[in-house]
């Protein structure tokens, strides 16, 4: 056993490793956000199948919009099973979904929400976020990129088209 600095010096990597250490932020554990209340945007929605049983569902992607965790993401799954259907309809109705066919199209807007977020731990001790409750507070019409070309929405859905 030797000193780390001696080992790195012998390998010729001391400067590189030191520089990387000094400039790299510690990774968050599995990117799990702390339990609490967040202002977060629903930025995407997509059809999914559960990994174990192939249960169909719809996954909402939330992105934290304010505070120190801005940019962090978490997800909320709505399952199309008999048992879960009432909760799924409740959640999707907050986005104006009244018909399953609406889920065939991308989300028409960004939905800013107040979210209560919890942490769940599975049998193996892995932690993950769980959305306990969310309320839509604002529907934000998506803005094009700052460098969007002229007439860039000609093939996009009509901007008036909503869920």
């Amino acid at each position: 056993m030797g000193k780390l600095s001696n080992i790195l010096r012998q390998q010729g990597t001391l400067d590189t490793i030191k520089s990387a250490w000094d400039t790299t932020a510690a990774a968050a554990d599995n990117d799990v956000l702390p339990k609490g209340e967040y202002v977060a945007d629903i930025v995407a929605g997509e059809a999914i199948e559960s990994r174990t049983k192939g249960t169909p569902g719809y996954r909402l992607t939330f992105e934290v919009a304010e505070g120190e965790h801005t940019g962090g993401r978490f997800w909320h799954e709505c399952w199309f099973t008999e048992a879960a259907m009432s909760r799924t309809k409740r959640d999707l109705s907050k986005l104006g979904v009244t018909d399953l066919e609406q889920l065939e199209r991308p989300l028409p807007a960004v939905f800013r929400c107040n979210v209560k977020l919890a942490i769940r731990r599975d049998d193996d001790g892995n932690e993950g976020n769980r959305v306990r409750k969310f309320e839509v507070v604002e529907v934000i019409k998506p803005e094009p990129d700052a460098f969007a070309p002229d007439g860039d929405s000609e093939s996009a859905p009509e901007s008036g088209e909503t869920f």
Partner: protein
Amino acid sequence: MTNAMPLGYRIVGPCSRERRLVDYDRAFAAYADCDDLAQIDREGFLSPFQYDNAIRSRVVRPDGTLDVRGFTGTHWSRYLWADIDDDGNIDRATASARRLVAWVLERYQVDESELLVFFSGSKGFHVGLPTSLFAAKPSDVFGRVARQVAEDIATKAAVRLDTAIYHIVQPLRAPNSRHGKTGRHKRFLTVDELMQVRPAAIVERSAEPLAFDLPETPAADERAVADWQSACEQTNRKTEAVRSRDTDRTELNLATLEFIRDGADEGDRHRLLYSAAANLAELGCPPRLAHALLTESALDSGLPPADVRRAIDNGLSKGVTE
């Protein structure tokens, strides 16, 4: 030079975020100039290629969000990019980048001021050769030919490249943008700096962005044109070979079997995983089985779980739609 491919996509934030349609040259120039609109203090990416209006068919939202998966239309790039990481060893990566640039300057009639060289902000370098040297025209196989040329050059210069950047969905970090993990910027380097400055000092300099002027476009070089032509022929031969194998295909590709058995090395892992998933889908493999077959090898290859799931899902959707 061509202005027939004005469009591209831009990602603000991590590269898993939405790809939005942009005027490519305007966006690239803004990043080069450290323009406020470019938001260089955030992570930023640009598409690996430029496209004509056909890419508008991939717009899925009024804000110009694109779904580029499966796009097979005409594309092009002003630069032939080489992405050098060399296993995250900055000293070795620097040596590789120096070899590559030296080899290019030796072989082609190109001035060093006409190359674009960047430290990536993390562990490697991006070297851009102007495609005007090769007289490269837009086509639906441009990316594959570019990859072939880059691989040929890399082999001759004894350099290993990350070839993921030749895939249409894999964006390239934008100049001067901030690296999400290191907090450093993708910084422009003159060829002199690359050749003379110690690797650790190059890393230190990337703490700050550096505005730079876009280089002049050089004229075509005879050897470069011949190299591009040779790569076109190789690409065509490979396409023909795949086409004949695809007729009445009933077996998995060798590459799929190899991926399941051995995984893949850094540099080509995403593409091979994606292709393996697409191949399984072509043969009617259910998604759950495909995930079961590929996930362990992909994780053992060092890919993070989220990347693994995404690549498999993307590959499955491609295999089903084709």
